[in-house]
């Protein structure tokens, strides 16, 4: 097994940083699983992600660390929190009862299997026939942030620009598909359907029962007709 020398040269400060970051990650992960309150679970997840980000910096993967904090800790956990708060935090049954029978046992088994797999694969080269190429990237004398920037803005400029077109599509798609039908004719003043969020918050998650949804969508045609007429008036 030939790991690049640069990877092996771990100093004592490195080890201390690793130990602290690893402990933070593990404590955070345990907190995610053991917290009774889903909001606390989500916040503990932020802690785990920060710990992993520190580990990335330790491994000279500064870009990955930044992405980890910005995307995962910043955006995705906030999304989790939004979902949890929209669904209501008082759903005690979620943590007290297994929705799927035998879920915990299977989760434990898969976790152990994954750990064994990582340990086995880290040492061998049979899956691809070659050792990881990361060691070589880190010893060219340039930070991997610079190398990534180079790659993204020269070699991979075209895919990068295509991705920016994808963002336009995502915005259009979100507007087209997520906007409520009764505001479809109302092109000037898009309104986000905030009324339902308030209803759900006050009355709990079960207040939006199916008949109401059916009724709301069923009556959308009437609203559309109204909007159409009001729209015609505002047409210069």
């Amino acid at each position, binding site marked *: 097994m030939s790991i690049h020398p640069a990877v092996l040269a771990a100093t004592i400060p490195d080890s201390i940083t690793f130990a602290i970051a690893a402990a933070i990650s593990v404590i955070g992960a345990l907190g995610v699983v053991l917290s009774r309150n889903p909001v606390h679970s989500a916040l503990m997840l932020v802690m785990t992600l920060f710990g992993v980000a520190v580990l990335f910096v330790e491994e000279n993967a500064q870009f990955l660390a930044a992405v980890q904090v910005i995307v995962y800790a910043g955006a995705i956990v906030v999304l989790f929190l939004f979902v949890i708060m929209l669904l209501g935090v008082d759903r005690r049954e979620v943590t007290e009862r297994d929705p799927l029978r035998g879920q915990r046992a299977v989760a434990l088994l898969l976790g152990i299997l994954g750990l064994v797999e990582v340990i086995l694969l880290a040492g061998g080269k049979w899956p691809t026939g070659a050792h990881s190429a990361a060691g070589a990237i880190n010893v060219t004398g340039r930070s991997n942030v610079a190398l990534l920037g180079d790659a993204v803005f*020269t070699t991979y*400029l*075209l895919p990068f620009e295509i991705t920016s077109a994808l963002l336009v599509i995502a915005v259009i798609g979100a507007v*087209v598909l997520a906007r409520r039908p009764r505001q479809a004719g109302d092109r000037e003043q898009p309104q986000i359907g905030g009324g339902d969020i308030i209803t759900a918050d006050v009355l709990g998650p079960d207040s939006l029962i199916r008949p109401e949804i059916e009724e709301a969508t069923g009556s959308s045609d009437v609203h559309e007709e109204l909007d159409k007429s009001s729209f015609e008036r505002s047409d210069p």
Partner: protein
Amino acid sequence: MKENPAALAPELALVVAAVVGAVASGWLPRRRQWAVRLLAAGACVGGLVATALAMLGPPERVFDGSYAIDPATNAARVVVLGAALVVIGLSAEPLRAHPHESEFYVLLLLASAGAIALVGADDLLTVFAAYLLASVPSYGLVGLLRDRTGSEASLKYYLLGALFGIVMLAGATVLVGLGATSSYPGLREALDSAPRAAVAFGAVCVTAGLLFKIGGVPAQFWVPDAVDGASVPAAAFVTTIPKIGGLGAAFRFFTEALPAGRVDWALLVAVTAACTMTLGNFAAFAQTRVKRLLAYSTIGQVGYLLMAVAVAGRNGLAQQALWYYLAAYTVTNLAAFAVVAELPAARTLSDYRGLAHHRPLLAGSLAVSLLGLVGTPPTALFVGKLEIFTAVIHGGYTWLAVLAILNTVASLYYYLRWLVPAFLHAPSPHPAVLSSGGTWSAATAYAAATATVILGVGAAAVLPLGAGHLLP
């Protein structure tokens, strides 16, 4: 010059028009959204002009070798832009003053740009970015009408697309890991010494993603639901433009990225082609709804097209056969969809009873397009089938050609199930079911049917346009 945006003028025209259209749609009143339609058509025409200019110049690789502008890319530009124009033509009436009319054209332009980029991409990461650019707008297009079937179709399409996208990305990751590069020429060199099983895994996964784009077995489940659930313009789009991109990308991937003789991808594609055409044709037998029948018919056609990919690189015929067949299939299939768009109330085969009596010209267009899909001379697909079968037999897959001929004969049955009531049966007691959708869709149907015949008669002039070496 390595980063030469001018080389991408047709794609840029589409993207810029899409962005301008998206911004303009926020201000345009509902009845004046035809401006965006005009803008979209203008972008397509401009793109075609730019492509004609690019065809005169030498082939080149731009953006650090990640994008090839060669005969295949130019052929894809012509076919995709032409198809987009036809789709815009047939969607003029069904979408007029629809709340999301502008968004339809914007998404159509972006998806077309994605389809072209799929063909031009000479790099695994570019291919995947193009896959997303071609797929994501399609999900929106299918669900644009926001009725129950449209939403269901969109969701199915999206979930399958996400699944196959992940599979494709996994395959690309394995190949990049093996070759330490993502560019096709580099991969071709590096994969020659890589473990065979890992190369095969990566190649199969990337193929799976491309099969989803073209609706080939085993990724064909979304086609009937998406086509039946979507509006007619979206269905016409989804059965043509993404397939052009996917097939072009598959052709380039197999011939340029995989080292010859390392993995037997040709057999994989041949078996896929056989399954696809057989399943599509036999499932079409029992259909009674016209859009569903056309959906299964497109699966059958994709099977024929995959045959050309299976013999890619074995002889010079395969490439020109693929591009000619794609052009012919696109215009013929769009002619059939234009007829469907012209008769919005007729949803089942029996609704077409007596069409020849009420609308002889339209019935004639339908006959040309459906018999064209079978491959009757003098339509374009006759020459296309001849070309593909020749290429396949020369490539050593005679059994595949025999199966394809049997399939072609069988497919005549379900096309006739549609045509016979239209021509021979007495007119329906409810003529309202054959009421006209509007002049634009009728004109599009006539024009596309005429183009099918012209393309067939003038095949000798058009065929060489799809030939020419791919860039290494």
